[in-house]
């Protein structure tokens, strides 16, 4: 607060006080940033809900597509793996559980990446913490993910997968995976402002990532068949995350090492991606 505010203090309109100074690349004060973010949470939620409503009114299949799409994709991969693997070791329940989770993570990353450049109208005309945009797109991805989990629950029962307390491990895994995806989304969203083709490259990387991660295959099967590459495969952040996810859903207690490594990746990506995003966000309005 400068001396000016002292001089005019007591006036009834002084509910808010802002000072804007040059800081292009520095971090905004984190405390007030988070407070402002929290204050605007209703807007982010309403924006997400309005996008859901808008999407549902444009097509009568609307909500059904959210479920049909990943289910059909699982069918496609099931057929592919059945043919490639000559019908051995192909588990439909495993493919759906992995693919549904992966779809959520990749949607979070991709929609987060585009959230800033597509929010140009808001950024140019309103002052708000820009992290609201990737957070809102993440919430949208999560809302679209939930119905697929209901479908998986049916598949889980139909395929006689165990119903035990280990299933609860899926929740922290979901949190870790989300943190990781939001972190990457924020990192790429910042890149997207500077290089508008980032979002064009990403789907290819994500597709390769899908094949390199234990989504369509299991970490155990990989360890048996490609032992010498195991160390390399473990460098993939999604390796421990999907390892724990699969353990949780198949009735196994997850490996603590995998849980720890996964958490480090998740929190690390979130913190680094978030800091990079915040340090650059004041420049977004200039670049859009």
């Amino acid at each position: 607060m400068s001396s000016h505010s002292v001089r005019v203090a007591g006036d009834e309109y002084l509910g808010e006080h802002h000072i804007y100074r040059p800081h292009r690349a520095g971090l905004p004060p984190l405390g007030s940033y988070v407070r402002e973010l929290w204050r605007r949470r209703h807007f982010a939620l309403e924006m997400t809900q309005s996008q859901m409503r808008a999407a549902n009114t444009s097509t009568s299949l609307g909500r059904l597509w959210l479920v049909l799409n990943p289910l059909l994709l699982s069918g496609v991969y099931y057929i592919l793996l059945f043919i490639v693997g000559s019908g051995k070791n192909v588990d439909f329940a495993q493919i759906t559980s992995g693919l549904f989770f992966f779809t959520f993570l990749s949607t979070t990353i991709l929609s987060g990446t585009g959230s800033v450049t597509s929010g140009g109208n808001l950024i140019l005309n309103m002052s708000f913490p820009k992290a609201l945009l990737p957070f809102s797109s993440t919430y949208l991805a999560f809302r679209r993910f939930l119905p697929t989990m209901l479908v998986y629950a049916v598949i889980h029962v139909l395929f006689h997968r165990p119903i035990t307390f280990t299933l609860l491990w899926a929740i922290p895994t979901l949190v870790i995976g989300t943190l990781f995806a939001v972190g990457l989304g924020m990192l790429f969203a910042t890149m997207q402002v500077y290089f508008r083709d980032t979002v064009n490259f990403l789907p290819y990387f994500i597709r390769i990532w899908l094949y390199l991660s234990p989504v369509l295959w299991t970490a155990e099967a990989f360890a048996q068949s490609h032992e010498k590459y195991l160390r390399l495969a473990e460098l993939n952040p999604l390796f421990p995350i999907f390892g724990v996810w699969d353990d949780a859903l198949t009735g196994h207690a997850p490996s603590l090492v995998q849980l720890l490594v996964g958490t480090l990746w998740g929190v690390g990506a979130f913190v680094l991606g978030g800091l990079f995003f915040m340090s650059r966000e004041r420049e977004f309005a200039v670049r859009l």
Partner: protein
Amino acid sequence: MSSLSASEPSLHAGTVGAAPTGSEAQRAEGAAVESTEATPPTATSPVAISVRDLHIHYRVSLDRRPTLKGALVNLGKSVERYRTIRAVEGLSFDVAHGQVMGVIGANGAGKSTLMRAVAGILPPTQGEIEIWGKVSTLLALGVGFNSALTGRENVTLGGLAAGLTRDEIREKFDEIADFAELGDFIDMPMKTYSSGMYSRLAFAVAVHMDPDILIIDEALSAGDAHFKKKAGAKMNELVGKARTMLLVSHGLGTIKEMCDEVIWMHKGKLIRRGDADTVIAAYTRFLNVGESALSLEDF
């Protein structure tokens, strides 16, 4: 405020040539630098907006679309791919609480950049902006609106975007809907609206946000003549409630009618500030169009 009084000599407009470039204009710009000393607020006039030595420069990419591919292709080549735009250069002024400040100037004068900086959207390159009060902006109509949704849903969305709570929006909803005069259209998707209806609702949302400071950029042209009149009356009502307002318009008639003081900007610099009549007269002489009916019209 005494610091913004019309008597403060900054430029004798009569000496400025018709074209915005040339030696006369340069003299005008030179004079402006001298006139933009920051004036500290006094105890008797609480300041709502204080702009001190504000500079805003930004680099614009000369590429049609900055891409990673383009950056890799041009790697190592000394191709100038950016141009620096000096949108605002060394601006200082204060706006007292309850004052309506008009900002005029030719296209490219930096008016919109200044508005966005005061709203906290664009960061200053140098200098400082200090704001006391809740700011509501009307820089573009329908910010945050989703045209697939109904007017009613968009009022909620627009209100939340402006920082209101759901309860506050519920309270104000009838007033906003009445003001926008949409009738049954309020429950129709906004993509079915005419552009006038769209602007009317957007304007209605913005002026009902109860801001302390309202920043308006060329938004008075919303709707037809009847609505313009109503919008003008609403703005006057806000001024009556001692709201501070920063108003950019090419409609000099509006500026003359509403503003206590006017700033004339040219190429990022403050050329003159003072009471509306004097500054507008100087500005119109500068443009060499005279105070014809055309220049006073809102477009």
